[in-house]
């Protein structure tokens, strides 16, 4: 084994931070979709990721579908779960307040997690990496090739979503619902359908995150909560509602964790990212790319 220099180490910390951060970014993007349409935070977002991984394992290892077929099948099934979540947990609430909706998503996440525990048990599961397991070396730093899939999907998703929300009618209609649902329905937008769509999209993206991450770090029934917390943090750091913000937030959090672990103390690495998050919030209360004026007119 060749010796590694300090510069080499720091570069590795950076690369690892960016790759892990891209996972947080994907989860953060999922949070933003639902937020952009409903202004609520979906605490079950992490469970979509978990389901993506485990259902993919089911399709691939049990039903023996080839990866290329199992992938969209999984995304579809998780999207269905997202739709069910909206129909059964969100839609029935008569007078939604923010706390009620948060509790509803928490209850949903408890249910989903409990069901996953009964179906898949408590063991972790693995998936084969899409393009093999041999680590790639980039200027002296190693990366698992699977991470390129994560980053690749992240880029595609962010670009597609930005185009969708900015350029298409449906996307603009969805954004209108968040700003002022009464006005939106007055101009003929079916607010309920837009909300449904946002949950479906968010679930789909969560599933993609889960499927691409499982070959790297396995997946078990209770992985969702920690990913949700970090994804939420990334979304806030970047500014809620902003997709580029979500990516930025995720990458920053991943990098601080990695640098903190390598250079200062690995026991406290999660704390470092959160402390930076708090400091940023104290100076820029709506996140890095969030706008204060916009956050003031939001209802929550």
């Amino acid at each position, binding site marked *: 084994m060749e010796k590694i220099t300090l510069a080499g180490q720091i570069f590795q910390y950076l690369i690892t931070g960016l790759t892990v951060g891209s996972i947080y970014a994907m989860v953060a993007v999922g949070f933003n979709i639902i*937020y952009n349409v409903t202004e609520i*935070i979906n605490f079950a977002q992490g469970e979509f990721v978990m389901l993506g991984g485990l259902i993919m394992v089911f399709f691939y290892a049990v039903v023996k579908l080839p990866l290329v077929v199992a992938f969209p099948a999984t995304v579809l099934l998780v999207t269905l779960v997202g739709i069910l979540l909206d129909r*059964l*947990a969100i839609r*029935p*609430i*008569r*007078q939604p*307040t*923010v*706390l*009620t909706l*948060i*509790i*509803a998503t*928490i*209850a*949903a996440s*408890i*249910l989903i*997690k*409990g*069901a996953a*525990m*009964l179906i898949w048990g408590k063991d972790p599961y693995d998936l084969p990496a899409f393009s093999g397991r041999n680590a790639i070396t980039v200027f002296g730093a190693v990366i698992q090739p699977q991470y390129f899939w994560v980053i690749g999907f992240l880029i595609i998703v962010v670009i597609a979503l930005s185009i969708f929300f900015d350029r298409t009618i449906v996307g603009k209609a969805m954004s209108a619902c968040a700003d002022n649902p009464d006005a939106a329905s007055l101009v003929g937008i079916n607010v309920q359908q837009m909300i449904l769509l946002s949950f479906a999209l968010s679930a789909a993206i969560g599933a993609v995150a889960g499927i691409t991450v499982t070959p790297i770090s396995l997946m078990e029934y209770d992985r969702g*909560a920690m990913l949700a*917390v970090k994804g*939420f*943090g990334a979304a*806030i750091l970047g500014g*809620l509602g902003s997709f580029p913000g979500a990516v930025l937030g995720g990458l920053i959090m991943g990098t601080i964790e990695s640098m903190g672990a390598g250079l200062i103390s690995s*026991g*406290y690495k*999660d*704390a470092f990212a*959160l*402390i930076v*998050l*708090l400091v940023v*919030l*104290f100076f820029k*209360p*709506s*996140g890095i790319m969030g706008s204060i004026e916009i*956050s*003031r007119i*939001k209802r*929550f």
Partner: protein
Amino acid sequence: MLRIGKLPIAVFALFIIAFPWIAHKIPPIENYTDIMIFAGIYCLITLGLSLLMGYAGQISIGHAAFYGIGAYTSAILTANYGFNPWLCMFFGMIVTAAVAVLVGAPSLKLRGHYLAMATLAFGIIVYIVFNEETAWTGGPDGMTGIPGLSLLGFAFDSVDRYYYLVWIFVFAAFIFTANLIQSDTGRALRAIHASETAAGAMGVDISGHKLLVFVYSAVLASLAGSLYAHYLNFINPSTFDLFFSIKLLIMIALGGMYNLWGAIIGAGLITFLSYEWLHYFEEFEVIVYGAILLLVTIFLPKGLAGTPEIVKTWFRK
């Protein structure tokens, strides 16, 4: 809830006083006194939280941290240094208040989800400190040998005795909080909750009042933590993690937010649900718990404390 009736308090007090006697007479529920101790400890926290969330409109997903600071301060000072537990309890409340001011002052200018994340981040950071600073806290394996409580030779070393101790504190906190709501401060809080702009225009010190409620809720949580530590004689960091903060949130939501009774009902209900009533379902315990939560959230949006209203409307239909 503007006027807290004296009659319900008296009735409830009677129920609490008689409860251990009732429990002893009915074998299947004999251990309920034990569970009620924890319900009482959680009530202390939810009373403050319901004030914070209901009246000041601030959300906190990190209150387990204050619960933990109180517990660890009491534990470290009594188990390692042998100081008087009551003084340590009081000292713990002061330490927690200081932390609450330090964290609260900059946080309270955050709004909505940003504030929620800030409290979440704070809660996790404190948990990590409890977990990592093994020399002080014993790390993940926790601290043993925490002494029990006694006053002038009377030791609170049985389930029944500790039960009465905890519930005396709960009633004191309840009455104090009720008075707070009905005082000038309470009115200012309600004004802020209704409309910050209007209240500000009237000259109400918004950030000062928000901070006051935040610190008050933190101090109550600290007291609860100390009582917990001295009862179990053992604490470990996982008691004070994110999941507990979320559990507190659920207690408030289920009980009803704008309502001190809601805080009591919510704490009691969730305590019994998660510790006792769902044993029967074994592996399905988690699913039933989630289902109950969802059903109550959907069909009883004002929480259980709002049920009398709903029952009245039913009978009218």
